[in-house]
């Protein structure tokens, strides 16, 4: 029984969100989990066979799973380090409000409002050896042998090109968050350090970065999670190719579930991806929390 003066009104306010979350997230996730222990054709419920952990065991023997995982880890490592280093550098510069900083801010933020598919198509055309601008431009500045190079059709460059485009797209968002974080640091701290004779590097290292830790943690977790879930850019730019060269886990999952008619196996890959992201994010949060306590 509710105590006098207290109502259950908050429960009614939360109920729509709870129902929505349950119906559209928790229930499908549970169905996907169950599906990962089955083999079926994705068409008829009568075709479902319970296979236990067979899909997961098969994953460990599947060289394309390891290939996709390796690509994913490489992608996350390169993208995360680039975005954090570049994002922090640009945020520090923009925070100092140099001349024209608002123009640069706008330029950095434009990719955020563009659709991934549009960005992917745009860069696919630019990188095309037949109709693109990149090859001829590089040749014009004296780089030999690249005028008709298949940037997206070569195993050596397909994934790095997707990384570059991804960094270009996500950098603005990271700068936005980091800049907001920088602007919350009280100016008094920096002024006091300056009066005490601290160099700009020491101010950054001993004042700015420690105070930025919570924002950096958010950025790192968001970038890592999004990078692990990368799908749209790969599908548009390389379709996972050539011959699995740029295939990441989400693309591998899609290929198995929808192109090769193995929805059970596909959901097992999705579950593995979920566990990997959960572990990586957990480790990041734990490390960040330990740093804060110290």
């Amino acid at each position, binding site marked *: 029984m509710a105590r006098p003066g207290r109502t259950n009104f908050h429960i009614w306010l939360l109920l729509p969100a709870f129902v929505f979350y349950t119906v559209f997230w928790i229930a499908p996730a549970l169905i996907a989990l169950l599906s990962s222990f089955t083999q079926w054709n994705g068409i008829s419920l*009568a075709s479902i066979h319970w296979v236990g952990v067979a899909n997961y065991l098969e994953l460990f023997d599947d060289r394309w799973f390891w290939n996709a995982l390796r690509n994913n880890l490489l992608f996350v490592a390169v993208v995360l380090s680039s975005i954090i280093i570049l994002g922090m550098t640009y945020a520090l510069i923009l925070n100092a409000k140099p001349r024209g900083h608002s123009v640069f801010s706008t330029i950095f933020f434009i990719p955020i409002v563009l659709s991934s598919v549009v960005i992917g198509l745009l860069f*696919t055309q630019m990188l095309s050896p*037949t109709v693109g601008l990149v090859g001829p431009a590089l040749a014009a500045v004296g780089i030999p042998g690249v005028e008709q190079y*298949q*940037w997206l*059709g*070569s195993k050596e460059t397909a994934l790095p090109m997707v990384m570059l485009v991804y960094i270009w797209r996500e950098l603005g968002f990271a700068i936005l968050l980091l800049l907001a974080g920088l602007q919350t640091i009280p100016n008094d701290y920096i002024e006091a350090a300056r009066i005490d004779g601290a160099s700009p590097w020491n101010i950054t290292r001993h004042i700015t970065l420690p105070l930025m830790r919570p924002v950096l943690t958010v950025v790192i977790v968001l970038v890592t999670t999004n990078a692990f879930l990368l799908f749209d850019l790969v599908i548009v730019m390389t379709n996972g*190719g050539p011959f699995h060269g740029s295939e990441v886990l989400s693309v591998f999952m899609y290929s198995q579930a929808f192109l*090769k008619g193995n929805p059970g196996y596909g959901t097992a890959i999705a579950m593995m991806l979920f566990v990997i992201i959960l572990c990586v994010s957990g480790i990041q949060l734990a490390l960040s929390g330990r740093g804060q306590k110290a």
Partner: protein
Amino acid sequence: MSKFRSLRALTLAGVALLIAHGGAMAQTVTLNLWSELSAPPESTVLNKAVEMFNAANPGIVVKHTSFENTAYETALRTAFAGGTPPDIAEVNAGSNAFQYAQSGQLMDLTDFVKPIEEKLRPGLETMYQYDGKSYGVLWGLKVGNVLYYNPVMLKEQGIDPASLATWEGFMAASQKFLDAGITPIAFGDRDQWTGNHYFNHILHGILTKDEYDHIGLQTLDPSITSALKWSDPKAVHAWEVYKAVADAGYFTPGYLSDDNDTAAGLFFAGRAPFYSTGSWGVGMAKANGAQNVALTLFPPVADSPEPTAIVTNSLLFTIPTTTSDADAAKKFLEFLTSEPVQKLYVEENFDLSPYQYDSSGWTMDPMLRQIAGLLDNAQNASPFLDMIEDVKCMQENVNEANVAVLTGDLSPQEAGDMHQECVTDLRAERGW
């Protein structure tokens, strides 16, 4: 009092009208039709056909819902899995339709289709017959193995278009262009289906109809076995020829990274003299406003057993077992195969009809008429391989293997061995 009487009479009349209207409503059957034909001219033609049917059949209302191409398969699968498919469904003929048939989700239409078969071009049964039963009617017919060329560019190099009738002639012409500094074949396999089609046409030229049909259908139909194995030299030769074309430098430089639209754009812009795609290329040429476009049959590889054979593709209209009114749905399917609807399809869709109507009086693009001639002169017709092979073996061992052969990750023999292993495992897994 008289006012009350009038009101009562009016109420009674209203009730009588409602009952009469309700009765009429009860007699009207509404059928939901789903298709992936969401873009003109295909969507326009189907919508017109639906309007014609509804006007001619007052008791039946067909409601057409179209989905964007890539979203359609997911929507349809989900609907079937959830037990709520439409009353009439359009599906890709062949293996795609057979998945639903295998699951017992489609009505057996064998008896209904029999009289329709009498007007069907021969050799197309493999597209809708599974395990001896028929599961739908074909809508439109596409010819796959067509080579488009730029006659002006050929003339500039002194190449006789007639020489393209053979593989040797095609390769010699390609070499002549390459020597002149022009990369001859516009090709982009980023999405893998284009490579699938190229390989398909080469393989189709090497094998006999029986060999070709059986090597694919053995993964779908337990009663069919194939004496020819994918690892046999004859099948492996198809990958060797495919790789040789790439290694010779005949494909445009973005052959692994460009998509089909980019490749088509190069051809229509006169930057490459050759481009292979199906009969739908006629519509693409019109849409691009391309002037210098001519066509011939995709050149059969040397010593081809059936050099005029055709590769075909079609859509199938099927009736799910859960349909609300099977007789009304059959009536609509029969209507789709009728002469006025097929004429509409051919005239407005730049495509052919699978039915043998006298089309001499129909308005057809000259290039389309030429393709109809290729079809009439063909020794036989077979569907695309991806329509007659299970997707479990097709995607990895044709679409992906083709790329691997071009990148050097797989040798042609390794591609053949891998494909055969998949087929053997699949048949063993199903106890065939």
